């Protein structure tokens, strides 16, 4: 039985350690496996590793799953894991290496064929989440091989449910079910994945029957597809948050003027009351309903409920014009001020429309919108990171079980030396929050850590560090009679496709 899927973006390589961008991970998941497996809610459960124990803050012991074979028939052993972890940060020219995942490792020792002892440089409570993201490749098949050998299939040997058959870049990837797979066997024997980046074309491919299933179904088309009784639509909330960042970087903010359009000496975004006021002007539910056709969940913090570190009391702000006006007046802007809303236009669905909608809402909230600008992401990313924008829209996706990495890269104070706050483009800085987060990260007990993360989140959001808007919902379109297990991860995996009655 054959399954034809139409996916929006293509992997850049079959080498699972070459890049950890989403599309590469998606493909890698079909052929390779990791030490742990991430479920729909990104929570971990045993994968190639069955057990892990923390002997002391620096030492871990990991038991591997017995009876697992690679797709070329060789058994899976500790040597493969050691080889894979060692190679993870050494793939030449990798544009997105797994360096962070293995950076805390000091030593990896083999106790027996299925047992490993790991020593870390510093205590790392999240070690297993980190290591768990590295894909395990066969030492025998891959040693001394380059990325190119994976693309040709020679080295593309994993333990996953599907075997690599062929890849024609820009066109399609063909896979075949692996008979010796240890886990639940996939339902479809042959898989043909076509890469169709254009939204309308992807939908047309589904409608014309060229493919059975497509990912990132544009929200505008979802209704149409759902109304057609030959197709069904799956809609799942993701862990990707869309937010409005307000730059506190400099004494003046780019694009910000006074209400008359003249330059403003101060940076109003440095005032937490202004940030809150802006947050109060935005009608998140309206955006979700009108702009996204329901494909979103209004948010009041970084991660959705299912992830660790969620603070249940931080609900999405409801619009309150009077309160916003009051806060603005308190901050010294009774007349409001002028600002420019900037966004990308090709990064996530509806990003350009969102910027316009925000512009409208801020105008109605009493601010003067000097303009709404949208740029292609390649231009936008550099300028946003370089601090050229005052109020700008960005998104950030969750890829781990907890909110820790997002809090660390987005809200922690920017510090080049320490390597924190990599995506803190608005340069929010709260020592109080930084301390709370550090405390949480040092906690080894998962439950306690989640509690501490939630606490840190509360501290940060009391100051409105960003204006959270919504979590995206991702939609898939497929033929009637198919079902897909998908979740926060946004992955579209053939092994998760089933037929239903």
């Amino acid at each position: 039985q054959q399954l034809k899927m139409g996916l929006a973006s293509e992997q850049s390589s079959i080498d699972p350690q070459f890049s950890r961008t989403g599309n590469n991970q998606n493909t890698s998941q079909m052929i390779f496996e990791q030490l742990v497996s991430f479920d729909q809610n990104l929570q971990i459960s045993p994968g190639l590793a069955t057990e892990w124990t923390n002997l002391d803050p620096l030492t871990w012991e990991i038991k591997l799953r017995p009876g697992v074979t690679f797709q070329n028939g060789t058994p899976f052993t500790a040597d493969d894991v050691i080889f894979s972890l060692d190679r993870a940060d050494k793939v030449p020219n990798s544009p997105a290496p797994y360096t962070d995942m293995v950076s805390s490792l000091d030593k990896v020792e083999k106790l027996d064929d299925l047992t490993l002892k790991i020593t870390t440089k510093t205590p790392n409570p999240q070690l297993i989440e980190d290591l768990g993201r590295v894909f395990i490749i066969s030492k025998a098949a891959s040693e001394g091989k380059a990325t190119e050998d994976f693309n040709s299939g020679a080295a593309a040997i994993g333990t996953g449910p599907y075997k690599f058959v062929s890849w024609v870049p820009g066109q399609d990837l063909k896979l075949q079910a692996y008979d010796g797979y240890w886990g639940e066997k996939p339902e479809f024997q042959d898989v043909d994945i076509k890469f169709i980046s254009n939204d309308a074309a992807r939908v047309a491919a589904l409608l014309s029957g060229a493919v059975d299933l497509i990912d990132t179904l544009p929200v505008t088309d979802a209704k149409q597809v759902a109304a057609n009784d030959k197709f069904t639509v799956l809609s799942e909330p993701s862990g990707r948050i869309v937010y409005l960042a307000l730059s506190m970087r400099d004494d003046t903010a780019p694009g910000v003027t006074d209400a008359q359009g003249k330059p403003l000496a101060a940076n109003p975004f440095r005032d937490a009351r202004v940030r809150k006021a802006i947050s109060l002007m935005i009608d998140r539910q309206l955006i979700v309903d009108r702009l996204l056709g329901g494909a979103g969940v209004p948010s009041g913090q970084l991660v959705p409920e299912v992830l660790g570190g969620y603070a249940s009391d931080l609900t999405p702000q409801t619009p309150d014009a009077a309160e916003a006006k009051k806060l603005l007046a308190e901050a010294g802007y009774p007349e409001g001020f002028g600002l420019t809303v900037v966004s990308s236009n090709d990064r996530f669905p509806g990003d350009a429309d969102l910027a316009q909608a925000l512009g409208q809402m801020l105008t109605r909230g009493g601010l003067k919108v000097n303009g709404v600008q949208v740029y292609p992401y390649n231009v936008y990313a550099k300028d946003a990171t370089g601090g050229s924008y005052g109020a700008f829209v960005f998104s950030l996706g969750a890829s781990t079980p907890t909110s820790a990495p997002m809090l660390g890269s987005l809200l922690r104070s920017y510090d080049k030396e320490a390597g924190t706050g990599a995506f803190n483009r608005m340069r929010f800085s709260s020592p109080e929050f930084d301390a709370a987060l550090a405390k949480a990260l040092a906690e080894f007990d998962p439950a306690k850590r989640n509690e501490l993360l939630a606490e840190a989140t509360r501290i940060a959001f009391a100051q409105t560090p960003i204006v959270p808007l919504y979590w995206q919902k991702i939609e898939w379109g497929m033929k009637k009679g198919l079902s897909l297990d998908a979740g926060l991860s946004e992955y579209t995996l053939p092994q998760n496709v089933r037929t239903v009655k």
Partner: protein
Amino acid sequence: MIVFVLRRLLQTVLVLLLTSVIVFLGVYAIGDPLEILLPADASLAEKAQVAASLKLDQPLPVQYLSFLSSALHGDFGNSFVFNRPALQVIFERLPATLELTITAMILSLLIGMPLGLWAGTRPGSRVDETVMTGSILGFSLPNFWQGMMLVMIFSVWLGWLPSTGRGETGTIFGITTSYATLDGIRHLILPATNLALAQIALVIRMTRTGVQETMPLDFVKYARARGLSERRILFVHVLKTILIPIITILGVEFGSLVAFAVVTETIFAWPGVGKLIIDSINALDRPIIVAYILVIVCLFSLINFVVDVLYSALDPRIRGRQ
């Protein structure tokens, strides 16, 4: 001839040098590839590591000079995204694009010329009006819109033709091509038509104008006076005369075909360089962009060269001058 080739070669090399500088600077100005390549949760340490491994941490002139020295050895660097030699990535996909553009070119000639001849020999008639009106449609609607309409009509509603991908390919004379299989040809029809529409319109207009301007010339009247048949006059005397401007323009237009292939390939998920280049521009994959444009400049020079040669093959007077 040798002189001609050598002079062109020297000029082309200079153009290539200039182009590489412009593109290098341009890509640098557009954005920072690291911002695009790195995943959202990358740390600053990772960023530094990637910058070092892709040599993006060096000053631009140094990067350019090292590119230049390896380019002289035929190495245009590895793609940032694919980590494969840029030229290899391009040449892997170029055949698909060439297949598409050449098919479009042939379509435009096969459809455009007869229609243009037909309309041109009957200026002011109903046929002429219809053909000319129709040809305006060819270039007045945006390319992507026409493409989507083709998809909606022929593959979604009527279900006659596939709308995505290249289909099965086979080998003819050692060349991998869609022409080898029926499935391949079926996949080729819609995108090639989409690409050809504007060109068809252009060829119609050029041909018609040419016919209109050539028919009153004395040599046509003289050919009639010699008792030649109208068919021979039209297809030998007139056609050979008007072929020159048509071919010249088509040479130039080949460039716009390759350029518009970007849109067509995106809509029809055609695995050609057009899609590659737009993805590469979006990802700021500089080695691919630079190599692609240099390849296109070479292609262009080659085409212009061929056009010039054809030109003199068609018109002996030009041959005399060379």
